[in-house]
């Protein structure tokens, strides 16, 4: 068995993924609109798992909605809220419903979210979750007991190419490769020269790398991310470009920057594709694709 997304990854084409952030509540209208807007324009749609430790409609629910609408979902799965029993149960459910791509994440710390007193589980970490999936695929659970019907997933993970210090990050990246990760969606990259350096290293491994593209909507956001978001570094020339945009035109400029970066990554075959994150601005994704000169 192979998933549509795995086929795309192995086809040699420049792969495009994006993501859906489910709502806080049961009004799913906007989420369905975003799915409808994006499902045919990308190779797969990630659905975030209580991103930033903020409680929302779950990733699994979002993935089912993507499937229902004919899209290809990537289930984001963090280790923050579930122990190994619950993770395995959810993987069985996902597989049985046709959700066959999983992005394995450790998950953000609980105190950065909106339920700061909740217990952080972290029974497993992202590397162990990848191992767990490969174990399930072998027909037994993590306790060594036989499964009545097993699973098969296309599994991925994340990497921060500009982490400081970098070496421990790369060791972990290699552990994820060894654990069977087939694709990586990276933390946002802005400095293509540095990213090219990372790719020279990463190319030695048999995995597909999708560069993280986070839409910049203003110079303020770019400065904020550089100062506060781990592993994100927006170079000064991009911040200046955003700051110089005409009033009300910063978002348009951000779309242009993202499009330009994607076009370069593709033209110079720097990596295997991109993962576009337009946090809370999903409707801007088609514009980014147009700006990148990609078919929409």
């Amino acid at each position, binding site marked *: 068995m192979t998933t549509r997304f795995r086929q795309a990854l192995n086809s040699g084409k420049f792969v495009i993924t994006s993501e859906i952030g489910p709502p806080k509540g049961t009004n799913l209208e906007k989420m369905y609109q975003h799915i409808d807007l994006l499902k045919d324009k990308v190779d797969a749609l990630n659905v975030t798992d209580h991103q930033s430790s903020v409680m929302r409609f779950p990733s699994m629910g979002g993935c089912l909605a993507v499937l229902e609408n004919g899209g290809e979902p990537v289930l984001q799965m963090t280790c923050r809220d579930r122990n190994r029993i619950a993770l395995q149960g959810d993987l069985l459910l996902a597989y049985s419903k046709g959700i066959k791509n999983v992005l394995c994440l450790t998950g953000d710390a609980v105190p*950065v979210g909106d339920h700061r007193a909740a217990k952080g589980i*972290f*029974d*497993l970490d992202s590397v162990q979750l990848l191992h767990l999936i490969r174990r399930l695929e072998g027909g037994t659970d993590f306790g060594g007991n036989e499964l009545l019907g097993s699973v098969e997933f296309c599994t991925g993970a994340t990497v921060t190419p500009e982490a400081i210090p970098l070496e421990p990050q790369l060791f972990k990246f290699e552990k994820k490769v060894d654990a069977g990760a087939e694709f990586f969606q990276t933390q946002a990259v802005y400095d293509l020269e540095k990213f090219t350096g990372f790719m020279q290293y990463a190319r030695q491994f048999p995995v597909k790398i999708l560069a993280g593209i986070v839409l910049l909507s203003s110079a303020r956001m770019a400065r904020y991310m550089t100062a506060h978001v781990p592993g994100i570094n927006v170079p000064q020339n991009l911040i200046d470009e955003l700051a110089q945009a005409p009033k009300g035109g910063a978002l348009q400029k951000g779309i242009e920057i993202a499009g330009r970066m994607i076009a370069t990554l593709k033209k110079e075959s720097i990596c295997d594709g991109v993962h576009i994150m337009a946090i809370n601005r999903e409707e801007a994704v088609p514009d980014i694709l147009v700006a990148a000169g990609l078919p929409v």
Partner: protein
Amino acid sequence: MKSITKQKPFDEVEMLIEKFNRIYLIGCGTCATMTKTGGINEVRDLKKALQSRGKLITGCIVIPTACDEMTAEMVKENEKAVQDAQCIIVMACALGVQRVNSSWPKPVIPALDTLFIGMEESPGQFFEACDQCGQCILGETAGICPLTACHKGLLNGPCGGTNNGKCEVDPEKDCAFTLIYERLKEQDRLDLLRKYHPPKNYHVMPRPKRTVLLLERGS
């Protein structure tokens, strides 16, 4: 090693003793004295505060080490004042509270919150060094415990939140894996950081944990 405590808000203590008018007070001469949460001065302050709210303090004492078995003797020695009280407030860590609780049948009320078992880094600065997990991995982590030094207790390396060597939950705190990495690098043992650690057994000794020491005679 010290049991690190902080004082409960007075309102909370008041709420816990709402129904009691006659109270006996116990402090601790070891950890709680050092952290200035339950030594002689703090016992005196709490005594005054309670008296000003109309409570009768039948007696008070600072036991040298409230958690050890001598506590039962001390309580006995002061039997009259203790018997006269309706409850005992203990200004010691939770071990002291439970020791008193097992030596006396009436209600025992904690006045402190126990935060962690800490090791002193520099005078007055304590950090949590061990979670008593039952399967020590310090031999592979450069002597730094990721279960306690990493906010998420990860085993296989830094999460995506590591930021310039600091932890995503608090820029004042070091990321455990930067510390482990630097130390292993100094020791030329970085291969240890490449090793896969399978999930931990969280029930090496299932709770409630108990053990009986087999003490050899005459050795």
